[in-house]
């Protein structure tokens, strides 16, 4: 049995049997049949629940005359995302604002969770950023094909016909490298932040690690912003029309 957070232990206590049965029916053998739910998954679930409650609370308390606190927060988020995506994607950016808002808020919340005692960042596990990066990858390719049709392949081919054979593999590799770089950037930043705090905690157990927690707070916000920004840029490149 690995050492786990309290929430994960609670989840495993109640749901270990059905989850293990489900994994076995998919021919996956969990490493610990008594504790198939990992810390990262339970933290993701917590993040999901918090965001769901937040969005439902915003929807219920929506009012024009008397805007509540959560509505102000939602409006600030919406305005920020719209402003950014308008300056990057330009025309027709409203279509993507739901996805961008959700992915931005999810990463921000997931990153900031690591600062709360008793919780940890799900993004400090490499699987979670990989999932987010793959979702973004599929999403922007889907919208590229939707916006450009079959002409989307022109973006992979380069400007002149006699270089097509060379540029096609290069472009395909570079698109997969985007997944790699999105994953590794988020994962390594979160992981390194935790590790630095831990290292200084082992050197000076009082006071000094607090500075690095502050640094980690800044890094968490900036990395969420960078992930959002890069998603927007990839989207804008995918949906742009060749002239």
């Amino acid at each position, binding site marked *: 049995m690995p050492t786990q957070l309290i929430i994960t232990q609670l989840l495993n206590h109640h749901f270990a049997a059905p989850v293990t049965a489900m994994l076995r029916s998919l021919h996956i053998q969990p490493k610990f049949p008594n504790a198939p739910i990992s810390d990262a998954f339970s933290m993701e679930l917590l993040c999901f629940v918090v965001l769901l409650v937040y969005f439902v609370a915003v929807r219920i308390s929506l009012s024009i005359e008397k805007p509540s606190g959560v509505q102000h927060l939602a409006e600030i988020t919406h305005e920020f995302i719209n402003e950014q995506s308008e300056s990057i994607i330009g025309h027709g950016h409203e279509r993507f604002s739901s996805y961008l808002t959700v992915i931005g808020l999810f990463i921000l919340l997931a990153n900031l969770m690591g600062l709360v005692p008793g919780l940890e960042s799900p993004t400090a596990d490499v699987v979670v950023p990989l999932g987010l990066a793959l979702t973004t990858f599929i999403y922007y390719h889907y919208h590229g094909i939707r916006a450009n049709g079959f002409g989307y392949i022109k973006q992979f081919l380069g400007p002149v016909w006699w270089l097509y054979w060379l540029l096609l593999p290069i472009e395909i590799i570079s698109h997969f490298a985007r997944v790699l770089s999105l994953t590794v*950037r988020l*994962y*390594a930043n979160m992981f390194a932040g935790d590790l630095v705090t831990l290292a200084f905690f082992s050197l000076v157990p009082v006071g000094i690690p607090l500075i690095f927690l502050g640094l980690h707070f800044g890094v968490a916000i900036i990395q969420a912003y960078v992930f959002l920004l*890069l998603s927007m840029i990839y989207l804008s490149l995918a949906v742009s029309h060749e002239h």
Partner: protein
Amino acid sequence: MKKLQYLFMSLSALLLATPAFAQDAAAAPANQWVPLAAALGMALAAGLCGLGQGKATASATEALARNPGARPGIFLFLILGLALIESLALFTFVIIILKVK
């Protein structure tokens, strides 16, 4: 004369290195140099990353001083550039974490 100097210098370097060779051959404490290599790799990556980020930030502040009106555009590109430069150092970090057991 210069060539002789080089010869002696390389000979002396080899002479200094012989205990290391002998130790590797005889007792072979496995992965003796791994912490050193990891530290050196990370130090190189961090130092060069700092140099690159310093250059980027310097030009951004300079541009901001010349034209304070262009703040949003400069800010966007600065954050993007810093993230992309930083990710190179982070790749090193991840490789070290993966390879060093």
